[in-house]
Each structure stands twice: as C-alpha cells, then as structure tokens.
C-alpha cells in the first residue's frame, strides 16, 4: 500500500481496523484500515463499485463484517445499528431514506428524542414533544422548510435533511454517503463550507462523493478505494499526484 499512513500519537476518534465484507463469494471490502480524528474531514473516493457504501454499511452495522470498529476507545462492531448511532456514530444514505410521513423538523427530532418506555411515559404525562428545532437545521439552512414534508423539497435539499438528521443529537462522527449529489455548483460549494463547520466542533467527518472538487478542497486527508482495498491515502495534494489513483480512475495498469 502506498505510504503516508499517518502516524499520529494516540488513538483516533474513529478507528476502522482490518474491515472485511463478503457478499457470498464477492469481497466488497478487503482488510480496510481507516482512521478519522477529532475535527478532521476525511474523504473517501473510488470508482463505482469500489466498496465505499459497503464500507459505510459495515461500519454502521447494516452489513455483517469482520474487523474492528472503535469509536473513542469503545468497540462498536458487535452492536446493532441503533446502538452504534446512540454511541455517536451517524450516517446518511445515498438514496436519502427520509421518513416520508414526518416533517423535516420531525425527521431530525426523531433522532434525538427520548425513546421506548421513557418516551411513552413522557408523551402521556410530560410536556409536549414539540421542542425547539435542532441546531443542525439552522446549520444546513433548513429552518424555512422545517414544517414541510420531504417530498415537497428538491432532491438536493432532501439530501441536506439527511445530513441534518445525522448531525442531530451531537453525533461525534458522521459518515456522509454522497451528500452533495443533486446540488448545483454553487450549492455544492456552500455545502463544502458546512462540512468544514461540522468538523470545527471536534466532530469527525467521512465524506464520500463523486464531486472531486468538493472532496479535494474540503478534506484534510483522502482515502482511495478500489476493488474493496485502500490503494492510497494522503493529503489532497498527494492524492492528486498519485499514479495508482489516476490509474484506478482511468482504468489503466498502475505505473510501478
């Protein structure tokens, strides 16, 4: 593997170690190691079918996988998806997957509320569940749409609702799976600023996108995935110059 595997003192906020995902005979992720630090925006790029989404699915518990997922020193890889989210590991979905029957505000509020029996008792005896909108709505400029339903918004803005939902409740790491698809150039640039803002509070961000400008401009470090393996990792400048990356994207044999 090309070097530049950073060696920083101490453990990162999110550590993914030797993660392997198999679908039948197909290996979607093959021994992937990846780390995200506090306040760091990490990019993940690679051609279609490289295993980016499968990595997100595995890390968040939606796909069975071998390997370790450690968030802030705590092993998460045996937990079901909702427990990982409550531990602070959040994600968005490529297809949006918003709750069609809930308003934008409720799509976000459902992620932070009290749950189960506690929620039930609070509903009957306590005060109304209508609380002030989550700060993530304002951050993503969605306050005006708070009372609309997702299908009343453009696809790009629906993506942003998904992002707001992942940020809600102070999640410590968010994995963004193609959040900028459907945004035009200006919106995409503005979204880049938002991604930087997310990280300023010490949150770790993993950004998957096909918009190379966005990824290379916003990220501190970038991982490149091809055929399920990490083939490169480094700063955007290093990645731009990496022969293996160019080959993976252009489909040529890497120049040794």
């Amino acid at each position, binding site marked *: 593997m090309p070097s530049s595997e950073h060696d920083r003192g101490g453990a990162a906020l999110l550590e993914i170690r030797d993660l392997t995902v198999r679908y039948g005979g197909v290996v979607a992720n093959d021994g992937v190691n990846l780390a995200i630090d506090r306040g760091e925006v990490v990019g993940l790029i690679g051609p279609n079918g490289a295993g980016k989404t499968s990595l997100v699915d595995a890390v*968040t*518990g*939606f796909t069975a996988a071998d390997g370790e997922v450690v968030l802030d020193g705590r092993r998460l890889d045996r937990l*079901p*998806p*909702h427990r990982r*989210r*409550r531990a602070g590991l*959040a*994600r968005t*979905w490529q297809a949006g*997957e*918003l*709750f*069609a*029957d*809930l308003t934008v505000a*409720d799509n976000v*509020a*459902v*992620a932070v*509320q*009290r*749950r*189960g*029996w506690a*929620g*039930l008792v*609070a*509903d*009957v005896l306590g005060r*109304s*569940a209508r609380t002030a909108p989550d700060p993530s709505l304002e951050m993503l400029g969605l306050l005006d749409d708070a009372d609309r339903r997702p299908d009343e918004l453009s696809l790009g803005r629906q993506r942003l609702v998904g992002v707001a*939902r*992942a940020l*809600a*409740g102070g999640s410590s790491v968010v994995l963004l799976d193609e959040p900028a698809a459907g945004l035009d150039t200006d919106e995409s640039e503005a979204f880049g600023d938002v991604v930087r803002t997310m990280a300023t509070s010490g949150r770790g961000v993993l950004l998957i996108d096909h918009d190379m400008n966005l990824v290379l401009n916003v990220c501190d470090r970038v991982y490149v995935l091809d055929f399920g393996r990490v083939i490169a990792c480094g700063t955007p400048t290093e990645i731009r110059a990496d022969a293996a990356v160019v080959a993976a994207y252009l489909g040529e044999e890497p120049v040794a």
Partner: protein
Amino acid sequence: MDQLVLFVTLGFAVGAVYAVIASSLVAVHAATGVLNFAQGSIALWGVWVAAELGATGTLILPIGSVQIADGPAPTTVAVAIGVASSALVALLTHLLVMRPLRSAPALSQVVASVGVMLLIVSLVPLRFDTTGAVAAPILPSGTIEVLGAQVAVADLIVLGLALTVAVLLAAYFRFTRWGTATRASAEDETALRLTGWSPDRLAALVWFTTGAATGLVAVVGSPSIGLDPISYTFYVLPGLAAALIARLRSVLVAAAAGLAIGVFQSLLMMMSTYDFWPVWAQAGFGETVPFLIVMVALFVFGRSIPERGGVQTLRMPPVRPPRTRPVYALVVVAATVAAILLTEGSWRFGVVTSIIMMLIALSLVVLTGYLGQISLAAMAFAGTGGFVLSRVTTEYGVPFPLSLVLPALAATVLGVIVGIPALRIRGAHLAVVTLAGALAIQTFVFGNPAFTPYEGNLIEDPTLFGLDLGVRSGTVLTTTSFALMVLVVVGTLTWATARLMRGRTGRSFLAIRSNERAAASVGIDVAGTKLLGFAFSAFLAGIGGCLIGYSRGQLSVESFTVFVGLTLLCTVYVAGITSLAGAVVAGLLAPLGVLATFLEGTLGVGHLYSLIAAIALVVTAVLNPVGITGSVRQASEHLIHRRTTRAQL
C-alpha cells in the same frame, strides 16, 4: 397399528384440501406476489354450489339462481359446475381486486384479499340453505384393506387428485415456456413485459387454474369432510403454513407439507382419545398446529422467503398526526353523552358497544396505521382480556378498576408474543402469523371446555366506592352509570393514545413505518419499538375486551371470533386506518355498534351486515385506500387550498 393407519388415512381428505390450497398459494404468489387469503373461500363457494346442484338441481349464483335440472343434477354435472364456479371466483378476484392492487402496499393487498374471503363466507349462508345440508357422495363408497385397516377408496382418490394437481403445477412452472415466464414475472415484471409477455394474462391463467384445482379437490373431498358454512375458509391457514414451509417456492413441498399437516391433525385427534393425553389439549389443539408451524417456519427461514421486487410499491396512506383541538374533543364527548342519555334499550347498547369498539379500532390504528404492522389478531387480544376478566372477578374478587388493568396486561403479554415474529418478517407474512395466532387462541383458549366452565365465563359487575356500575339493573338493558363508566375509560385511553401518536412514540412509529433501515440509523431500536407497539395495541384491545365482557355479564366467545376480528379490520380500514377520526368512525360502523343496530333494528337487515362490511372493504381497498376520513380530509384540504389561493389573487 391398524388404528394408526386408520387415523393417518382419515387425515387424507382434509390434508388433500390443505395440499391443493398450499400449492395454489405458492403458484399465485409466484405469478402475482400476492398471498391470497381467500383461497379457502374460493373452495367454499365451489363446494356449496356443487352440493346444492347435487341436492336440488339449482345453480346458485351470487345473485339469482338457475334451475338446471328437475331434481338432483347428475354428479358429474354438479362437480363440473362447482369446479367452474371456484375457477370463476378466483379469476374475478384477480381481475377485479388483486390486479388493480398489484403495485399497492402489502396492507392494501392483505385487506383486499381478506375482504374477498369475508365476502364469500358472508354470502354462503345468505345464498344457501346451510342447515342440515349434506353433500351427496361423489366417489365410490368402498373400502380397501391397508395394513389391517379399512381405508375409504374415496379418500385415496382425493389424495391422488391433490398430488396430481401439485405435480402438474410444478411441471407447468418448470418445463413450459409460459411457466418460466410466470416465474420470471415474480423476479421482474417490467423486464418480462419488455420481452413481449403479458404478466397479467399469465397471472390470470394461474388464478383460474388454481381456482379450478382448489375447487375440484374440495368438491370431491366434501362428502368425506362434511359441509360447513365456514370451515373451508379457514383451511387457508394450514395452507399458508404449508406454503411458508415451502418458502413460497416449491409447489411440491407445499403440497407435501399440507398433506402432512392434515395427517398430523388427524393423529392428534387419535392421541386425544388416549388416557395419558391431558384434558386441556383435547379440544382445539389441532388448530394451534398451523400457528406453531408458521411461527417456526418464519423464524427458521425468515428473510429467505422471497418478497416480491419489481413494480414500484405505492406508499401507505399518509398519516397526519392528531393536533390538539380540545374543542373537537369536547364536541365528540358531548355528542356521545347526549347519545347515551337520549337512547335506551338496544340503541343505547349499540352506542356503548360502538364506544368500546372504537377503542379496539384505535388499537389497530396504532399498530397498523401508525407502526405499519398488519395485525389480524386484535379481537383475540380483546378476547384474552375478557377471558382473564372473568377469572379475576369471579375467582379472585379483584375489584374494579384493577379488574380492567390485570386482564389488559395479560393481553399485553400475548401481544408481545404474537409480535415477536414481526422482528423478522413484515407485510403479508406478518398478517399470516397474526391470523394463525388469532385462530389458535380462539379454538384453543376460548373454545376449549377445559378452560371454560359449564355455566360459561361469568363476569361480576363492576362497582366503585359502593357505586354499582353494572350494565343491567332490573329491566334496564344498559344503565347510564355503566355507559358513562365506559365513556370515561375509553375517553381517557383515547386521550393518552392521541398524546402518544402526537409525541415521540408516534414519531418513532411513523419512522419505522416509512423506513426501518433509516429508523435504525437514527438510533431507534426498531425491534423494541415494534414490541412496544404490539404491547400498547394489545393493552388497548384488552381493555376493550374487558368492557365488552362487562357489557355482556359473561364472556361470550361469539364476540371475539376471528370472523368478528376480520370484520372489525374491514370497518377500520374503510373508516381510515391512519387516523384517530378513523377509529371513531370505525366504532360507529363496527359489529354490534350503532350502524349494526340501525341495520338490525330499523331496517331489519342485520344478517346482511358482514356482507356489506366485506363489500365496502373490497371497494375501499381498490378505489379509496385513505378511507372515509382520509377522503373527507383530502376534500377539506383541497377546499382550504382553493380558498387561500383565491384570497391571494
């Protein structure tokens, strides 16, 4: 040994019907993705048509009749017409009901096929003279000796027919181009259409053929099984159990499993005659078999049972959480109090029953409308409440209102148990589990003499602080104090439920309904929340069952049959399963409620009630999935929208 052989062969006739239903279910599922709950009813209609022809030579149609012979029709004619009517019913079900719903949510498909099932089973006692009818023998009556037992030749022929049907169906799917195309339509209907096949015609062929096959085996087997206005309808459950064992894939495995269930039930019958067999398991134990099989099959195979892909699924009817409008609530309460005070006799009884039914309808709104879990077991939970109520009041003297809470908690426990499969399965499969569970509870618990004393399950009247809240007082059929007590209980629970639906719980329910994966990704414990929904829903139904019990003075099993439960589902769906208002309207429409009282007392057509409910359900499912309250709301939103846009001009 000979007794064993005898009982094994006694199970052949019923087992053959299970087998043909099971293989038909698999075939129809392969062709259309539908689990047809009406397959048993399709058999029922053919059986009665053939029996009537064999007895009087009259061909009974759903409307009208034709005299085709003076006196009994020849056996071959009777059988042929019986089979043809089953086939036609199946074809019409496809063309008029299921085909228009082919891209509808699972809920619509399930309620529509349940509607057809109810429609036929309600029509049979109206169109046929079901008292004392006997199916004339069709097959030779001889016996042959097998391993020392006398076995009826007729049963062996019926068995042979069912197996032949299964083999032919399997061969059709495997070896013919049409069959291959039909299987392909289950994979991707659009792609099949692009290759020049018509999935609709292939599906119609499968519906027609399986309808005929089911009719044939049932008609020929009916002299040995017996004529009954209902039982064939519920043979669909063992059929479904067998189809699930075959993972909805193999027609042959389904047929074999269906036959095995029939034989197994017959063997259970034999076991129950032995001394060592416990008394409590003598009655109704056989009916729990399909439920246990369904539970195990779904748990073992779980996700490997195919759910149909392809055509994009339409969304469930939309939900608008209730808003706080105390004015409306007060108006409804005031109207109800007025209705209680201004009525008497059977009308007041109807009003009170409507109030109670509203609570059980609400349990369906919460579970099915909000959480998206299709449950056909609401009345069984209610019945459990009533059943336990009888115990705690007569044997332990538990006072009111604790006497409501304890039975409701028992129903809650049962609700969670029936809900456990919902953690692995959804949609139509869940409906199968809940229906099987409801039937098991009905026959094994309510209908079991071991659990029900001779004098019935009596219930002591409630009193509170020396105040008599009993339903009867002298000649008064329904006392004001009882009616008001019901109103207070139901009103309080409805208020609490409205707060839940508006609050965090409703939010997580709706999140799970629209997208379970995404719900888990925002930290919602999907499994726990589903069980919470089942628990809460069963609690509401359990309280409702207690109130029904109090209103009767004893637990009447007839109030809680699967039939009543399905009829209630009809009314809730017709009224609008996604809203509080829908539950209120459903209460008015519900069995024994205000509408039923009106039909019975004023129009004198109470016997048509379930037929009307079934027709309304089918029509609603096909044409107006948002129900009555949903279309009223849509109309008013439309009006408001027009007014505001006009004001802006």
